[in-house]
């Protein structure tokens, strides 16, 4: 009882995920700043932003549904937090079961749908536009992402992340067998996180703030937290699925390697957002269906052939 409460609230639950989410945001902003010859924010900036948002006045358009607007960020937050529970962190996973990969993928999609709904219910012109765009984008990146993520599952002959990691311990990291799949998964993750170059739903110069234009105060704070935690959970998942071979006898070493891998992946994510321009929504759909999906299928075909 006490143990599971600890798991839920501290590690790998709420507290750990919130802290790592804020750390991710800081690292991302810092890296981006350094790419752009800026200094970047101090380490407590994301936390300070969060506190500021929570202490600010909460406004919504007059006819918007306040109940739903409060509910949606909370649902998203709880779903990404739950997803975070099932993702092994440096090989440590208290709640593993067969099929948890599917649960994670499903829970990670909830925020996107909630984001769409948030745009529709908040009744701003820009938010409706941003919401529609987020749904269109969802259909473009989700399919290649799913196909790519099923690669490790097929090779590991399991839908459980920890089993996949065990298989990697025997066969070697899956990045060796599926480099293409990894790249596609990263692209899909960027799409999921609505980061540059796929920040179409919240492109400031086009739709102001996207779905969240009308949100403010604590609700916006929750949304920002959702985005951050979604990002870290995605990063942990990719590390586990493609680099999860380390079965270190020493836990410190395992944690160190895990952290380094995460840092490298964050660096890659920041770098991509630094050197690419934002695509148009029709271009993204074209990219997703004409390039990413065939490539993902190619990778899967390769994996199946290998497995036979």
């Amino acid at each position: 009882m006490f143990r599971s409460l600890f798991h839920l609230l501290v590690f790998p639950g709420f507290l750990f995920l919130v802290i790592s989410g804020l750390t991710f945001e800081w690292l991302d902003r810092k890296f981006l700043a350094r790419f752009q010859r800026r200094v970047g924010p101090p380490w407590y900036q994301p936390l300070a932003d969060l506190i500021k948002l929570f202490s600010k006045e909460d406004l919504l358009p007059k006819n918007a549904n306040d109940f739903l607007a409060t509910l949606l960020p909370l649902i998203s937050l709880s779903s990404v937090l739950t997803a975070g529970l099932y993702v092994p962190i440096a090989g440590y996973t208290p709640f593993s079961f067969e099929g948890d990969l599917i649960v994670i993928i499903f829970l990670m999609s909830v925020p996107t749908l909630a984001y769409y709904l948030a745009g529709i219910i908040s009744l701003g012109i820009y938010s409706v536009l941003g919401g529609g765009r987020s749904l269109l984008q969802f259909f473009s990146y989700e399919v290649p992402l799913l196909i790519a993520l099923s690669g490790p599952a097929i090779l590991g002959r399991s839908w459980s992340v920890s089993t996949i990691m065990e298989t990697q311990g025997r066969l070697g990291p899956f990045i060796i067998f599926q480099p293409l799949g990894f790249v596609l998964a990263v692209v899909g993750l960027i799409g999921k996180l609505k980061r540059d170059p796929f920040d179409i739903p919240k492109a400031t110069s086009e739709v102001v703030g996207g779905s969240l234009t009308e949100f403010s105060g604590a609700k916006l704070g929750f949304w920002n937290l959702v985005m951050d935690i979604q990002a870290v959970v995605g990063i942990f998942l990719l590390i586990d699925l493609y680099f999860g071979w380390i079965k270190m006898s020493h836990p410190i070493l395992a944690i160190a390697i895990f952290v380094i891998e995460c840092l490298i992946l964050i660096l890659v994510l920041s770098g991509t957002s630094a050197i690419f321009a934002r695509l148009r929504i029709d271009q993204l759909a074209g990219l997703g269906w004409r390039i990413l999906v065939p490539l993902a299928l190619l990778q899967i075909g390769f994996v199946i052939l290998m497995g036979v």
Partner: protein
Amino acid sequence: MDKISIPIGPQHPLLKEPLSMMVDISGEKVLGGSLRLGYVHRGIERLAQQRTYVQNIHLIERICGICSHVHTTTYCYAVEALLGIEIPPRAQYIRALMCELERIHSHLLWLGILAKHIGLDTIFMHTWHDREMVLDIMEEVSGGRISHAANQIGGVRFDLDEEKGEMIRKILIKLHSQVEGLLDVIESEPAAIARTKGVAPISPDLIKAYGVVGPIARASGVDVDMRRDASLPPYDQLEVKVITHSDGDAWARTFVRVEETRVSLNLCETIIREMPRGDVVVHAPRRVPEGEVIIRSEAPRGELFYYLRSDGSDKPARLKVRTPTLAALSLLPVQLSEINVADIPVVLAGVDLCIACADR
């Protein structure tokens, strides 16, 4: 899907200056748009009639925050033409040098804004950093980053010594390599090309019908450049390479402006090298004889037109300024159709808005 109208401005993250647009969209398609101007109208033309010619230099400088020097230069040439005095060649060269530096920093600024609009924030930061070098030069030689106050009637305020010339040359060489890099990026970055190539092309006929000037006209293949055509001193002694492109789309506008930055960098070097020696100012009387004059010059955004009428007192009887942005703005509603919502920023950036110039 139904038609909805989205307001862009007067306050919008897209706009750096107030301008109001209503854009009709259906889904992601833009059907059309309308424009409202006048949010930064300050009545400068009327104000200028109440101030002396000397005071007006500083008033005119504040028409625009980016191309402030070319405004005062044109104004001073107009007053000097009425006075019938010719300023020393060295002063002419210094004025031209400042104009070219201004063109460089204006184009770099513009490129940064375009990059920001298409989500390429790194280029935005890098170009604005490079632009800062130009501003540093201008601050060093004239004493002000934006309001240079370099002109006075009858010449310029400051002289350049060898040391400063050397400093400018060093910075310009550094800038040269940066601009080459920018050119590489706009020629090769796939997402940036995809966002700008073929977007909102303007035909040369449309350019002529609306009287559009400057880089936009040159990007559509209309070969106008007041540095060459109006042959204001000292450009009549300098070789100005005019960059044109035939496509007329957003990418061509980008290309023309970046290439022009390179031309201006070269021009700056030539100006510093060939600068004649001598005085930088001649005495000018305060009262201006009766008469009227038209002076045209090339601002970073295109042809700048000044009409000045004097009634013999020390205040102008009428001052009319025609800035390049106004014509380009009138073309904006035409461009705002048959494009994507995501193209609106690109189209807007392509105009190189200077609302303060257009409204005055």
